[in-house]
């Protein structure tokens, strides 16, 4: 009896999803994502961005090099009402397979200290300018 009540709602929900071409779920594995058109589109978008930014080139495997694995991350972006507005697929490198000295040397990046931001606020107050 229960499924009979839920079924029509599911149908409507499916239709709504279909209508705006957005998936409502977040796949854990790429195989799941490949089953769904909207996630495939999202993955294509990400790869298009790579070619637009000239991120990489396909080369034959240099067998003496460490090849770093890649992984797809799937996230739904929602607006303030909790409605899904974007399926975001992101390709990330599995940085933990990198070997120091071979794949990377320096990783240190500077991060601003809160104190210096507070001093900046003080200075902007004193000199009377606006911060953006």
């Amino acid at each position, binding site marked *: 009896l229960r499924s009979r009540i839920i079924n029509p709602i599911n149908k409507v929900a499916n239709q709504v999803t279909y209508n705006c071409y957005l998936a409502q779920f977040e796949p854990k594995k*790429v*195989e799941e*994502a*490949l089953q769904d058109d909207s996630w495939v589109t999202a*993955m294509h978008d990400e*790869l298009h*961005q*790579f070619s637009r*930014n*000239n*991120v*990489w*080139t*396909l*080369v*034959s*495997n*240099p067998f003496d*090099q460490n*090849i*770093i*694995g*890649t*992984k*797809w991350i799937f996230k739904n972006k929602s607006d303030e009402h909790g409605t899904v507005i974007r399926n975001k697929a*992101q*390709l*990330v*490198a*599995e*940085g933990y397979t*990198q070997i120091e000295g071979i*794949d*990377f*040397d320096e*990783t*240190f*990046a*500077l*991060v*601003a*200290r*809160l104190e*210096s*931001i*507070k*001093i*900046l*606020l*003080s*200075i*902007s*107050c*004193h*000199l*009377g*300018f*606006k*911060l*953006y």
Partner: protein
Amino acid sequence: MDVKSAFLNDILQEEVYVEQPKGFMDPHYPQHVYKLKKALYGLKQAPRASYERLTTYLLDKGFTRGQVDQTLFIRNQGNHKLIAQIYVDDIIFGATLDSQAHEFVEEMKKEFEMSMIGELTYFLGLQVKQTSEGIFISQAKYAKDLVKRFGLDRKSHARTPMSTNVKMSADLTSKQVDPTLYKSMIDSLLYLTASRPDIAFSVGVCSRFLANPKESHLTAVKRIIRYVNATVNYCICFSRETNLVLARYSNANWAGNADYRKRKSTSGGCFYVGTVSFCVGYILLDKITSM
């Protein structure tokens, strides 16, 4: 102002190869791999590459880098100054001549894909409000959520963060409390000290017992949270009527620490620029030299 897809723009120094993305293998060359020209999210060197590119660009454009804080960039144009502070992909900036600030945005947009979010209102979890009287920073929302998270929002308020006559000690004989809960409380409160120097000392004292928290310590931490509950809307005000005089205040007590045989002394200090303290710190001293 944010740099969009910051990492995808950063040129890599090293030779890095990655697998072809799963599901999108090249059917003709399945054995091939991609050689990266630019950084990907997840790479160890990604944040560094991003910082490098941004700094190189800014130095080219006539900025000078801060001697002490290397994420601060200043450009002098005539009698006017443009100051930019970088936080990974976020840039806070301002200029004594407002039009220069707008020019800077246009300049940046030519080189990077930027998203301009307008006047600074939110940064690193700090709510920022700029008015004609001054700049206010607060973590009101964070404070409110914090009190709620630990279930103390309906408990009575405390008027001070810590009692003046209770001496905290290791308290080895009483019952231990859940260290994970204690740690997460201290952790949340430590972040709150960014805009609340009034709790910095009490949180600091309580954090000395992280390794072995007892009931008396948990009570003290809960009191701090109940104090925060009473004062969620407190904020730091940077008044427009200020100067840039740097001042330091310090104080110390003599063997105030109650632990048997240790009796360490505590020294504390805070630094002010004009009317606002920007740094507060306390330490337990191992030795003290009498004057």
